């Protein structure tokens, strides 16, 4: 597969090696985060008028799910403001290395070096999703907890342990970054093998060892690379490439996949189903149950949600992979098939989240303009947009966009399923191996069409 190295362009290379542009964007994002926290905690309790809700869950979420993740993978992580305060304290520096920082630098326990905690964190936030998305104080509190957890983790553990193993948002960005048309890789692994100092991992006077705890020559997927570009600064041989590549190239990689990632795929699909039903469906009883935290209906909702993401969806995928294997006479273990075929559902998962986001964001985007003038809901009119009325955008084209995205995701999943089947058991029937999983994907697509497209 052909790749084009963007770092061959001197301007791009210089912009990414320099810490300046990245710092400027990160500082702007940090300012936005602080505004969102302050607005959430002290501003108007009306969510549609509060910057904490509108800037985070409409503006930022739209940029993340419709632009950053599909086209830049972990591009958001490279400028995310959540870990930077802790990182500055840990390093004792904002820019290049100098002096000693405050971080204790402990290693993350080996048993937790996976994404199970990120899965659990995402499920926990999702259980309270409708509250987080609509109540400014809860959003402010959640953002503050994220910030505090990132600082605390950075002070105790080495590098970006928080991003790699704890951040619930980073968990799903990593999963879907496999589909992005960009990747950071080494140009020539032999150069790295001969380089005894391994400064990309250990660091040098020019930069820090990989904050994401990745040894760059070992990168075969985007999942764990935060695109912080620190390795560009520490490699003395100019041996890094930022490639434009065929989208989804990581799906062809078998190495490094585990049950934690397979369950992440199911959790994301299940959460998209639940969010679509609760937030975009016409069922008032379901909305009431999902928002009445602590009541009997909420416990019923929570139990159903957990059953969906940890039981029904993984169970259905397990059955599909097992029956496909049996039909084809496969000798591959079901666990291995399950983890591989789960990766093939990744495009459908991203498509479902994009279709959900399209519906949610287009209907509510016009809330952004008044908030820009009056971020705290205190009656200001800073840029003259405070009185703009709510107007849903794109109602005429939205269903077609959503259907196109979902069908594209299904087609992409079909291609990935076929590749996985051919890779697992090349001598067996690809169609028989793939048919049950693809049928499950088609069924999920129909359900998403029913819930999302109107």
């Amino acid at each position, binding site marked *: 597969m052909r790749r084009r190295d963007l770092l061959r362009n001197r301007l791009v290379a210089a912009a990414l090696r320099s810490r300046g542009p990245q710092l400027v964007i990160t500082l702007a994002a940090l300012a936005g985060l602080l505004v969102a926290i302050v607005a959430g905690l002290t501003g108007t309790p*009306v*969510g*549609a*008028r509060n910057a904490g809700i509108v800037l985070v869950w409409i503006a930022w979420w739209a940029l993340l799910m419709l632009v950053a993740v599909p086209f830049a993978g972990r591009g958001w992580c490279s400028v995310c403001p959540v870990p930077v305060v802790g990182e500055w304290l840990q390093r004792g520096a904002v820019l290049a290395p100098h002096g000693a920082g405050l971080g204790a630098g402990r290693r993350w326990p080996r048993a937790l070096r996976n994404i199970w905690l990120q899965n659990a964190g995402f499920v926990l936030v999702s259980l309270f999703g*409708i*509250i987080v998305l*609509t*109540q400014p104080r809860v959003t402010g509190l959640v953002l503050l907890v994220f910030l505090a957890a990132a600082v605390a983790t950075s002070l105790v553990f080495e590098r970006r342990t928080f991003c790699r193993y704890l951040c619930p948002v980073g968990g799903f960005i990593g999963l879907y970054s496999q589909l992005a048309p960009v990747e950071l890789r080494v140009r020539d692994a032999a150069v790295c093998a001969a380089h005894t100092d391994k400064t990309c991992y250990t660091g040098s006077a020019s930069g820090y060892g990989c904050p994401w705890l990745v040894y760059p020559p070992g990168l075969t997927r985007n999942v764990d690379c935060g695109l912080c570009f620190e390795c560009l600064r520490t490699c003395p041989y100019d041996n890094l490439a930022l490639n434009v590549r*065929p989208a*989804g*190239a990581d*799906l*062809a990689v078998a190495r490094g996949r585990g049950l934690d990632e397979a369950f992440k795929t199911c959790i994301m699909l299940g959460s998209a189903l639940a969010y679509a039903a*609760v*937030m*975009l*469906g*016409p*069922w*008032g*009883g379901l*909305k*009431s149950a999902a*928002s009445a935290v602590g009541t009997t209906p909420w416990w019923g909702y929570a139990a159903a949600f957990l059953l969906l993401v940890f039981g029904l969806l993984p169970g259905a995928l397990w059955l599909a992979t097992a029956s496909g294997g049996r039909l084809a006479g496969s000798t591959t273990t079901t666990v291995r098939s399950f983890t591989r075929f789960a990766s093939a559902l990744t495009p459908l998962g991203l498509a479902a989240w994009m279709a959900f986001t399209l519906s*949610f964001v287009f*209907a*509510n985007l016009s809330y952004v303009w008044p908030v820009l003038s009056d971020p705290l809901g205190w009656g200001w009119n800073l840029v003259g947009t405070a009185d703009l009325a*709510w107007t*849903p955008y794109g*109602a*005429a084209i939205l*269903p077609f966009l959503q*259907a196109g995205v979902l*069908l*594209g995701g*299904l*087609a*992409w*999943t*079909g*291609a*990935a*399923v*076929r*590749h996985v089947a051919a890779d697992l058991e090349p001598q067996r029937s*690809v*169609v*028989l191996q*793939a*048919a049950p999983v*693809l049928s499950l*994907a*088609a069924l999920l*697509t*129909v359900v998403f*069409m*029913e819930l999302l*497209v*109107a």
Partner: protein
Amino acid sequence: MSLHRWSLFALGMAVPLIALTPLGGPTTEATDRTVRIEASRFAYSPAVVHVNRGDRVTLELVSTDVVHGLYVDGYGVAAEADPGRPARISFVADRPGTFRLRCSVPCGGLHPFMIGKLRVGSDARLWLALALGIPAALVGLLGWRP
């Protein structure tokens, strides 16, 4: 079954599905239709309104708690109702399909998710999803190399 025969079989299933997909045409004669919709935080009752294509529809919005709005996606018409003061909107349901009804007045925490549905004509989405989904899956399975 070979890949080729499998694809023919699946396409054979998809073609009649597409051909039989209802296109939302009038199933009965167009009439004047008035529907009373009760709005309370954060739901409409009935949650789904069915009308025939071509009907002259009047939606009567009755709020039972705070001020609520009703905006019909796709038709772009809206009304606001205070408690005890119903509001009406009228339009000709000349576009087939399913359209969201949204509250257009901030009415509380879950306001952005106060949603109902208007179905004009027979609901073809399930058929369309199946009719389009099968070829989409086939395109991926048979023709698109990642």
